């Protein structure tokens, strides 16, 4: 009998594959249907935002960094603003911190809804996408309400917020918070005990806690593998230490546990949002009282010469940030986010570097993919929740 000829096959996946969440390219070596090796290629979306930011004044950097991780714009701008405020030595008023917490948590819900919809759809549960995007629309409406812009509100600024909350903000957020818990139950009915979904996700894409930490995957991936680390608990910012919430932790480190962790995170986010909403008075301070950074209120600009000059200077020349460097981590939807800001004492950042949890997750892909089946590659990519804008920046 003639000997069977066997060889591995090289398959190119992406960069235009719909399940790679953008433009991730994987070169897979296959032995039958088993993945032998994987070579991720990134950089297709590299737009040089960090280089561009070096030519912009500090306040102008906010819209730029929001476009990096385009599903969590608030946590990008929050990370940048906190670092710059650290250099400036600014302490935010209580109300500003609470609003920032509320927005960051709404952003987490928003991002997790997109993740859940696309992840489920890629595994064959197409209907869930329609439901999650329906609820996400309500969260985008909140962004539109506060800033007139749905994806990139640029509402969090260095020194506080862009302006005060609009009328009707509390009611619309409260409506969403009342609606969402029931909706999350519905999503769970569709997936959590769905036999097909469980078979596709349990024991798939396993990464150990130690390995996840070594690859720097602090966030939902490490928590799915049993590492109870959350920036909001370990290094609280914006007064997170005053909020009641739990950090969900998985045990097995597979796709299913990462799913459970994110679902529970959504519930905890709603809990935090409720507490924050209660604390925020409808009217009050929305920026720090510091003329170096925040322009005078409009009624003074229109009536007083000094205020007009100050306003003009702030918008034409920006403000000076003392020489130094700062990195303040925040817990984004994909893990630890944060912006390393270096100042040379001028009005433009000398260097900014956004920590990119998605890029590190792409680096660790081979840990989760190699040895598994080719169909599971899609499940793993969905479960690490990468945003290519954040990977390539």
């Amino acid at each position, binding site marked *: 009998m003639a000997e069977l000829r066997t060889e591995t096959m090289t398959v190119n996946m992406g960069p235009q594959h719909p399940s790679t969440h953008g433009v991730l390219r994987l070169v897979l070596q296959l032995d039958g249907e088993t993945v032998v090796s994987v070579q991720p290629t990134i950089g297709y979306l*590299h737009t040089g935002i960090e*280089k561009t930011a070096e030519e912009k004044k500090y306040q102008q950097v906010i819209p730029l960094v929001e476009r990096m991780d385009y599903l969590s714009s608030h946590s990008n701008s929050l990370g940048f603003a906190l670092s710059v405020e650290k250099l400036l030595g600014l302490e935010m008023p209580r109300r500003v911190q609470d609003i920032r917490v509320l927005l960051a948590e709404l952003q987490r819900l928003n991002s997790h809804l997109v993740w859940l919809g696309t992840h489920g759809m890629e595994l064959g549960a197409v209907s869930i996408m329609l439901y999650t995007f329906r609820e996400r629309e309500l969260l985008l409406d909140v962004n539109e309400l506060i800033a007139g812009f749905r994806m990139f509100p640029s509402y969090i600024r260095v020194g506080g917020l862009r302006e005060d909350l609009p009328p009707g903000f509390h009611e619309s957020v409260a409506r969403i918070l009342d609606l969402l818990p029931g909706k999350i139950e519905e999503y769970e009915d569709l997936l959590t005990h769905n036999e097909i979904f469980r078979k596709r996700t349990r024991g798939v894409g396993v990464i150990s806690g130690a390995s996840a930490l*070594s690859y720097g995957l602090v966030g939902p991936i490490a928590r799915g593998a049993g590492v109870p680390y959350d920036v909001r608990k370990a290094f609280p910012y914006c007064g997170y230490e005053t909020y009641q919430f739990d950090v969900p932790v998985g045990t097995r480190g597979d796709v299913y546990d990462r799913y459970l962790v994110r679902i529970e995170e959504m519930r905890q986010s709603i809990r935090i949002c409720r507490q924050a909403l209660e604390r925020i008075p409808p009217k009050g301070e929305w920026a720090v009282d510091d003329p170096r950074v925040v322009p005078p209120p409009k009624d003074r600009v229109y009536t007083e010469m000094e205020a007009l000059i100050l306003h003009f200077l702030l918008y034409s020349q920006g403000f000076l940030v003392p020489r130094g460097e700062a990195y303040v*981590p925040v817990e984004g939807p994909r893990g630890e986010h944060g912006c390393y800001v270096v100042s040379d004492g001028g009005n*433009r950042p000398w260097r900014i570097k956004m920590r990119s949890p998605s890029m590190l997750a792409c680096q660790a892909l081979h840990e989760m993919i190699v040895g598994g089946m080719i169909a599971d590659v899609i499940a793993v990519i969905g479960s690490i929740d990468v945003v290519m804008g954040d990977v390539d920046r």
Partner: protein
Amino acid sequence: MDAAAFIAAISAALPGAGLEDGQGVDQPTLVVPRDRLVEVCEALRDQPALRFDVLADMTAVDWWPREPRYTVVYHLLSTVNRLRLRLEVALDGADAHVPTVRRTWASAGWLEREVWDLFGIVFDGHGDLRRLLMPEDWEGHPLRKDYPVQISMKPKVYAPLQVTEEEFHSQIEKDRTVRGGTGLERGRERS
């Protein structure tokens, strides 16, 4: 723990490591000599009181035309002991290479590739220094401060970015004079 406590803890295991306090405003910062970097990193990772198990981020800063030109920056995190620490290594422009910490933390693999790609700093012993974000055939290292950013060239047939040496230097001069100094100083100059 502040920077002095970190220096004391590491010096106990590594006498004469030559660490200095980097005076960080946000977190303790240590300046590490290049030839002791790997030892210091391993001590930071393995000592039970420290246990820096995550290399959260690393990057570089170009201080051109000042020397030492580059600072390589490592952000460390201990999830067990809830500590943060920043390490800095200063490098001369003519001698921009630093040992890799890839064997200490796996996350350094791509982070070092990115720094090499964008700054041209070589990581000795890395073994896989390829372009990460820029295309493979790209010339130059874009995040260097002397990299020409705003050269306006007429569109022509596809060719790699090419400028003459004169164009390059005059553009850098222009960039520096526009960017140099603070906004307020420049405003005064203009008026």
